[in-house]
């Protein structure tokens, strides 16, 4: 399938594995529950491993494991649920996670700017047909007042 990654449309080959599905080779993501329950098995996974988080998951518990993941998927059950914006900020700012952070779920054009400012760098759009048009959203604003994942100094230090 196609996703937006670092501002361009690319093919994506990650497999988001259900908790019940058998482990397979290749790039897979698992839920935090599965990671915590099958930690030893999953640690031996040969290919890239990713972790899926929802806004109600205990982010802090997986911080020691962050080096195991080359992808963190943040799930937005509704585009109005803004908890994962804080997750993205914390992952980048506080826990210095440099791998891919992806938005999944109710991901729409009009939230892409805020998501990218918060540290999310790849996007599975709810409606893939709108992907081409959605790219414009990254340029909605040329500046932000705040400290963001993309601009670590707030505007008031750059004025």
């Amino acid at each position, binding site marked *: 399938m196609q996703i937006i990654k670092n501002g361009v449309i690319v093919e994506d080959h990650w497999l988001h594995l259900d908790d019940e599905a058998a482990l397979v080779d290749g790039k897979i993501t698992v839920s935090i529950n599965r990671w915590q329950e099958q930690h030893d098995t999953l640690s031996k996974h040969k290919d890239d491993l990713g972790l899926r988080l929802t806004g109600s998951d205990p982010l802090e518990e997986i911080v020691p494991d962050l080096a195991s993941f080359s992808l963190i998927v943040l799930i937005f059950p509704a*585009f*109005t649920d803004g908890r994962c914006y*804080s997750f993205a*900020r914390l992952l980048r700012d506080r826990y210095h996670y440099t791998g891919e952070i992806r938005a999944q779920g109710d991901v729409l054009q009009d939230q892409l700017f*805020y998501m990218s400012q918060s540290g999310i760098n790849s996007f599975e759009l709810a409606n893939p047909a709108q992907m081409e048009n959605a790219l414009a959203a990254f340029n909605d604003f*040329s500046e932000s007042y*705040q*400290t963001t994942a993309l601009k670590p100094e707030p505007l008031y*230090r750059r004025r």
Partner: protein
Amino acid sequence: MYQYDNYDQTMVEQRVAQYRDQTRRFLAGELTEEQFRPLRLMNGLYIQIHAPMLRIAVPYGLMSSKQVRKIAEVSRKYDRGYVHFTTRTNFQMNWPTLESVPDILAELATVQMHGIQSSGNCIRNTTSDQLAGVSADEIEDPRPWCEIIRQWSTFHPEFAYLPRKFKIAVIGTKEDRAATKLHDIGLHLVKNHEGETGFEVLVGGGLGRTPILGQVIRPFLEKKDLLSYLEAILRVYNRLGRRDNKYKARIKITVREHGLSHIRELVEAEWVHIRKQLVLDDKEIARVKQYFTEPAYEATAANDVSFSQMQTEDAAFARWVKQNVVDHKVAGYKIAYISLKAPLLPPGDVTSEQLDVVADLADEFSMGEIRASHNQNLLLSDVKQGDLYALWLRLQAEGLATANINTMADMICCPGLDFCGLANATSIPLAKEINERFDDLDYLYDLGDIKIKISGCMNGCAHQSVGHIGILGVDKKGEEWYQFTLGGSSEADASLGERLGRAIPKDEVVDTVVTLLEVFKELRYEDELFLATVRRVGIDPFKERVYADN
């Protein structure tokens, strides 16, 4: 007042372009109503009973004459020639079309205005004391801090989809004219034992269905740490606030469910991490403060004798001065309230013609600035006392000299069932009926300060739970009934009103007000104020009389 630089102006213009495209996509069917809703709300656009309603932000209530003329112009061009000022010092247009909103916003952007932060589950427009910078008892002018908060909170990427709306108010005096204890965060500029100025931080206040007064989460915060502490509170709230029930989503409920001490621990733990990153440097504080320096007051203004002379010669002027004019920190200057509570007109409404006159008067008499107050009035904050008579004559000619500030006629009232999709009952017609019954100004002056607040539903937009007399519209099997509360206050001595008893049918509401005031006059000790009497005697004497007949 603050002036946009290129950064600020570009952001507002890019916002207009963004919203123009969002409106286009909505009208083309590319965005669903559900997807478009938060986008339009975050530009101030509600869909009401009759038409859309557009709310425009007036940051901390401050406007230039140029802005006020533009407001008048857009209200003529895109609406019906009047606007409505709200309790959070914003203004609303009641009849714009959805299609015209991008054009309205583009016009307002030319005078540094916008609908950003006026609705939606984001950090809302920061409010303040309408006497900021001109009252004598001020510890420090809160407006530069409001502006610093405005910039930090505008389009904050992390906090655009909070569990619920989030309101911040800042004051610099002991007196509270901004209802700070009823805000998600209230900030009080205070001095500590060492004589340094900083903020006392309150959290968890709010009105609506569950009115709660804010509590102190930090007694003293250094000014340079303001943004990091706010960001810490917001981050804790964004993660912890309830998203399963919108009536339990405000931070007041988060604080109540988790306890203040637990919330404080979480906030302080978060704060430690981000404190350095967001420290406000002296350069930025000085940059913003330069826009709020004192104007060049004339020392000779105090020599004027006409002010006291005209009060002896013209009783109507003297009445207006007594009721609508308050002292300025500089001798020879006064602060003049322009009442938007003319009897028989909806509280807070003002016509485009009146706005043009107010803009002219501000240029002529008050340094070209106009302020809006929490009580839905306007004011001119820097008028030489020698100019007051001329100002009053001009205001009178426009129907803007109603001498009723802080009287019972200075009611706060929500739009109610006549305009609002949420309301259960009317409120503006009730305010009108009350004014019709109490049309004797001398009687009102004799009653002293009485704050009546009327809301048409339990969302409580008119803050009835903190009215000295609160009136709340409720629906009973399709009929409009009203629940009274007594003894509320939104000021420094803030308290929530106590329920008088069972709801009262619509046609008995005005009689009930009459009864309450009769009881007050009987029990009142000399010039005691209504609120003081209620607090002294309790609500029982009022209750007995109101419900005596049935």
